């Protein structure tokens, strides 16, 4: 028998609630949330951005990764109120305006980087952070960069190859640069 989890008996109306101002994928928005909600929950439930996944809720798997003020972070480790005033990019905001894939996403597509796709957010945002720093990463650097993400299809090798191909394509200038992390004003 397991012990009961601590749970409030207070009515829903008594749960502390607030309005948050965020900029998500370049668009300013206001959203009402409970103080106890995680950022990943607000992105998925209130904002309906389902590209950000819920995996372990423990900071291990990386499926909930987004960019918060330009840094790749795991959004299950952030209480939504802590994101007040932040600029967030979710997986939906990575590709170019008007649809299509950015060079990094294209490299994953071309190299079968993903099987089920559940770990996409973590792999993409971790790789973006790496490629913003260097376009000539060693395999060791690529492995280090994606180490915070768990791929349960165990497709790690094609993930490494995809990042390597993206670096090369972007470096050769044939695919343009990875979009700037900062969102347009």
């Amino acid at each position, binding site marked *: 028998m397991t012990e009961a989890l601590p749970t409030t008996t207070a009515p829903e109306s008594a749960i502390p609630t607030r309005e948050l101002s965020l900029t998500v994928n370049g668009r300013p928005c206001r959203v009402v949330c409970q103080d106890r909600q995680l950022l990943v929950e607000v992105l998925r439930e209130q904002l309906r951005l389902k590209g950000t996944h819920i995996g372990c809720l423990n900071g291990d798997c990386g499926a909930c990764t987004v960019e918060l003020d330009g840094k790749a972070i795991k959004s299950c*480790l952030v209480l939504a109120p802590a994101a007040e005033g932040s600029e967030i990019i979710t997986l939906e905001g990575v590709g170019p305006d008007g649809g299509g894939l950015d060079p990094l996403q294209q490299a994953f597509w071309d190299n079968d980087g993903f099987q089920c796709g559940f770990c996409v957010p973590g792999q993409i945002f971790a790789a973006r952070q790496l490629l913003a720093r260097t376009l000539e990463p060693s395999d060791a650097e690529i492995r280090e960069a994606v180490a915070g993400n768990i791929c349960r299809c165990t497709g790690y090798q094609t993930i490494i190859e995809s990042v390597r191909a993206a670096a090369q394509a972007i470096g050769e200038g044939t695919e343009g640069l990875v979009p700037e992390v900062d969102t347009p004003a």
Partner: protein
Amino acid sequence: MIRTALRHHAPGDLEEAAALLAAHGERAAVVGGGTVLVPSLTRGERDLDHVVDLRRLGLDELSGTDQELRIGASVSYADVLSAPPFPGAAQLLQVAAGGITGGPQIRNQGTVCGSASYANPSSDMPGVLVALGAQMHLHGPEGGRTLPAGEFFVDAFRVAARRGELLVAVSVPTRPDRIGYYKFKLAEGSWPIATASAVLPDPDGSLTGATVTLGAVSAVPLRLDLAPLLDGNGDLAVPAAEVDGWVAAQVPEPWDDELAPGDYRRTVAGVVLRRALQRAEENR
């Protein structure tokens, strides 16, 4: 989701933060990077009514004098790593930050002071801070006070903060010691099984005055003075197996958790210590 009626506070000054923590005691906690506290709330392991967020307190400063570096409570591992090379002994902190488990996302979120406040025996920062003789700057309802790291860590998951106090910064010395860090873990995603931080102060390159601080092998970090192992020239006077035996004897109550039993930690401690020492000696 978190099932309790949590209230999030982001106070704008330290007095307000300390007052909130003092008023709510065990029902409140500080949230910094969130990497430990938030999932523990999600899992229902912590039952809180209030969290006090550091984000508006301006504690994200990393600053230095000619003798020390001060690392504010909101400074992440990524901030430490992207800073210019730390001088002297303080370099140990940068080396250890580069090996923090969990990938770049966790290094973007986790903080030095958060790790210190959590005081998990199986983590990098407590051992590193004790090795450096770091100063821990606390702020509470009665104002600020500073404690040496060796007095800050009082037991596993327990620090010397009083009710209402929070850790606002740590200071680490930049004196020109040679340092070496070695961490032993069994998987990329694992907490360390044993860590060793070697600090060699002798400018002539001997081990005179050398200490090695073991982390993750006992409830609190163990700072070992190597003098009993040295000859008159400050060189190691005993073979490796004897070093290992001596080290094991310094760990009477090894830390035991799901990652590794205590006797295993005690057994590997000597090897880990020797490797840290070797790194420090190569670090000229």
